[in-house]
C-alpha cells in the first residue's frame, strides 16, 4: 500500500512557525486552533541551544482516534492511509482527543467539533504538497510518499523528545543523516 510520511530534520528547524500559520491559512481555521504546532524539544547534546519539533496528526498506521470515534467521523483513507476527519459527522464527544497519544486533535470552539490535520488531502489529490511542507523555508519539514509497505532505513522513528508509539505506529520519521549539527542525533 502507498503510505505518506511527514519526515523531519530537527537540525534544520529554527522555530519560525511558518508551517503553523500555513496550516491555519489553508484550512481556514482560527489563529488559536493550531492543527500543527511547533514544540521546543528538551535539551540535546552539544552546544546547539534550542531544538524544535513541528508536529500535527501523525496519521498512525493503527490510529487510536479511529477506534475511539463512535460516529465514524474518523476514517482511514484506503488508498494511502491518511486519517481523515469528517467534521460534519463529528458529535463533539472528544473521545478521539483522549485516545490520541500525541495530543494532535484540537477542540474547535466555534463549530463544537474536533479538528485536525487531514494531510491537505485535497491538495495532495491535485498533486500539491501539504501547505506546511510547501512553506517550510529550511526544508526541515518534508513529505515523502512510499509506494510500498517497506520502510526506508535512513530514517529514525524517534528522537530525544519524541517516543515512537509501538501500538499506534505514527507515520512521523526523522532523518538520520542530519543536514546540520550532526552531533544532535539521539545517542
Amino acid at each position: 500500500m502507498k503510505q505518506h510520511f511527514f519526515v523531519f530534520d530537527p537540525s534544520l528547524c529554527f522555530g519560525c512557525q511558518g508551517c503553523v500559520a500555513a496550516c491555519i491559512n489553508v484550512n481556514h481555521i482560527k489563529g488559536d486552533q493550531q492543527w500543527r504546532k511547533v514544540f521546543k524539544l528538551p535539551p540535546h547534546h552539544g552546544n546547539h541551544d534550542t531544538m524544535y519539533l513541528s508536529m500535527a496528526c501523525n496519521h498512525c498506521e493503527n490510529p487510536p482516534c479511529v477506534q475511539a470515534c463512535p460516529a465514524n467521523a474518523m476514517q482511514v483513507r484506503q488508498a494511502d492511509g491518511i486519517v481523515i476527519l469528517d467534521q460534519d459527522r463529528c458529535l463533539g464527544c472528544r473521545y478521539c482527543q483522549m485516545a490520541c497519544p500525541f495530543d494532535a486533535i484540537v477542540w474547535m470552539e466555534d463549530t463544537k467539533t474536533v479538528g485536525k490535520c487531514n494531510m491537505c488531502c485535497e491538495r495532495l489529490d491535485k498533486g500539491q504538497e501539504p501547505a506546511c511542507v510547501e512553506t517550510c523555508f529550511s526544508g526541515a519539514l518534508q513529505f515523502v510518499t512510499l509506494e510500498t509497505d517497506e520502510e526506508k532505513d535512513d530514517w529514525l522513528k524517534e528522537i530525544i523528545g519524541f517516543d515512537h508509539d509501538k501500538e499506534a505506529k505514527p507515520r512521523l520519521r526523522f532523518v538520520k543523516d542530519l543536514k546540520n549539527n550532526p552531533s544532535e542525533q539521539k545517542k
Partner: protein
Amino acid sequence: MEQTKTSYTTCPYNCWPINCGLQVVTHNDGRIEISGNPHHDFSRGRLCVKGQSCFEIVKNKDRLTTPLKRNQKSGTFQEISWDQALDEIAAKITLNINNGRREATALYHSHGNIVQRVNWKILTPRFANLLGITLWDGNFPCWYDVGVAQQLTGYWGLHDPGPTCEKTAALINWAQDPCASQANLTPYILQVRRDNHKVITIDPRVTQTAAISDIHIKPRFGTDVWLANAIAHILITEGDYDKEYVNKHCHGFEEYRQHIKSYPPDQAAQICDIPLKEIENLAEIFAHSKPLCINLTRGALGKHLNGIQMVRAILCLIPLSGNIGVEGGGAIWGESIEFNDALCAEDKRPAAPYPVNNFTAIDQALDDGTVNSLIVVGGNPLSQWPNLPKLRRQLEKLDLVVVYDIFMNHTAREAADIVLPATSWLEELGFRTSNRRIYIMEKILDPSAQCREAGAWMNDLAQRVGVNDYFPWPDKQKCLDDCLQSTACKNATVEKLRQHPEGIAADIPNVPYSDHVFASPTKKFELYSTTAAEFGIPPLPSYAPPLESLADTPELAKKYPLQLISARRNTHFHSFHDSHQVIKTLRTLEPEPTLFMHPKDAAARRLKDGDYAVMFNHRGQGRIRIEITTEVPPRHVSLNDSWPELNEVTATYAPCPTGVTAKYGVGGQPAYQNVLVEVQGDNQ
C-alpha cells in the same frame, strides 16, 4: 462552476530588503484566499508566519473604521466625520503657518506608510514639501546610522541577497539574523552551504541564523570594531589583501594601515572574549574565500553608540579582500530603485528651520516646543521610539496628536487627539520595489467602512490649507504611472506590471560599483573618511565603548547588571498591528513580552521559566515574562522589539551629529542597544 479571479500583490509587512509576493484569489461570494505568489522571483510561493497570517487583517473586527476624536474630559474616543477631523487638523496647521511657525507641525511617517512605496518616496514627502511642514521618517529608528556609515565610505551595499548568495563562496551574517527578520532568505543561505561554501554568523546570541550556520562567532557585546580591525590587521600584516585594488580605488590606505596597528589580534581576542584562533580563521576566510559577501541588511549595529564606526570597520574589509564589483561579493544591504523624485516637489518647500530627521533633533524639538503638533502616518512612536516615559511627557505637552493607522496602537490609545482609519494594502492600488524588481500591488477590495488612502485625505487636507496642486492626477493609476517615470523604472507602467506577476526588472546595474566610482568626495572607497573628519566623527574606524555596558560603565552595572539586547523573531514586524496582538495567529504564538534570560541569571534572581517579572532601570520599567534559555549569554537579556516594554528603559541618546543628517538625509538612530537593566520577580 464557481468564478474566481486571481490577482497579485505583495506581503503587507515591510521586511528589508525583500518583500514576498502574494497571490489573492477572489471568489464570487466575496471570500478571498491569500497564498504565496509562485511567480515571484525570490519568494517563489513561500510565505513566513506573518505572510501566512495576513488573511486576518482586512476583515478584522479590531480595524479602525471611522475617524475618532478624544473627549478631553472623559479621555474616551468619539466618532467624528472626516470633514470635522480634517477641518480641525487644517486649522492647526494654518495657525502654525500664520504664526510664522510652519515647522511646528511635524509629520512622522513610518513602516505602515512605507508598505506603499509611492507613499513613502513620493506622495508623503510631496505633501510635507508643498504644505511646508516638518517631515520625519520612520527609517531613523530602523537603520539610519548604518546608512551614515555607508555614506561616509562612499559605498552602499547595493547587492541583492538572492543572486549574491547564489554566487558567493562565503556569507557572513554580521549582527544579522535573517532567519528571524527575513525568513525567506533561509533557502538561499542553505544553498550557500549545499554548495560547500561557508556561512558564518557573528552575534553574541545564538540566533536562529546562527543555528543553521557553519561557524558561529560570539564576540562580546559591542566589540565589533575590534573584531573587524583585528581581521584587517592580520590581512595587512600577512600581505593577504588586494594591494592592486586598494592602491587604485581606496582613499587613505596609509592612514588606515597605521591606525589598524593599534588593533592587534591577541588584544582583540581578549576584548572580544573569543579565542585568537577564531579571529585568525575569519581572516583566513577573508583572504582566501572568493567571492565573499557580508550581510548587513538591517540596523542592529546602528543601534549602538559606536554603530557608525562598527559598520565602517566591517565595510573596510570588503575592498581590502578584493570583493567590490564582483558577483557574489560585497555588502548585502538592498538595492535602491529611484522613482520620479521631481514629484516630491522639494524645490517648492518654503524655507523654515525644520528640525531634521535625527533623534537628537526630534527629542529637542519636542522638549523645547519647536514642534507643537504631530501627525503620525503608519507609525507608533509610543512603542518604537526610545525612553517612553520621557516621550509620554513630551507628547502630553503637544497641542495636537493625530494617528492614521489600520488598527489602534500604543500611540493612538495613549496620546492621540484624533485617530484616522487607514486602508489596508488590498484596498489601494500601488506597487512595490523589491529584489531589483517592481511588482504590482493590485487593488482587490473596496476600502472598508470609512477607511481612506493616505494620498486621498492628504489631498483634502492640503486643499483646506490652501494647497491645490497636491494631487493633480485624474486617478491613482495615472499618478503611479507618473511616479514610475524614472531611469530605474522606465520599463514599468501599472498596466505592464499587471501583466507581469513575476515583476518587471528595474534598470539598475547587475553588479554595483563595477565601474569602481564611489559616492564620496574623492570618488574612491574612503578607508579614511574625509566627510567624517569634517563632522568631527573619527575618520578611521575606531572603537568606543557602548553608552552603557557591563565592562565600560561599572558603577551603573552594579545597579543594573544585565545588558539588554533588542531582538527580532518571526512572529512580529516592529509593532505592526498593535504589536501583532490583533492577529490571532501571531498573538497565539507570541502573546506577551518575553525576556530571554540565561539560566545562571535566572537562578541568581530565583526566577523560573514562565515567571512574571519587572525589568527596570533609572529611566523606566516594563512587565515581562521570563523565558530561560542559553541562547543569550550570561549577564545579557533580550526582548523582541515589537514590545513597548523594551523602550520603557532605552536611552534617547543618538550619536550621529545632526549636521550629517542635514547633509545626507540619514543618521540619528538612538543607541537602543546600549542599555543596562535589572530584573526583579513578582515574589521578591
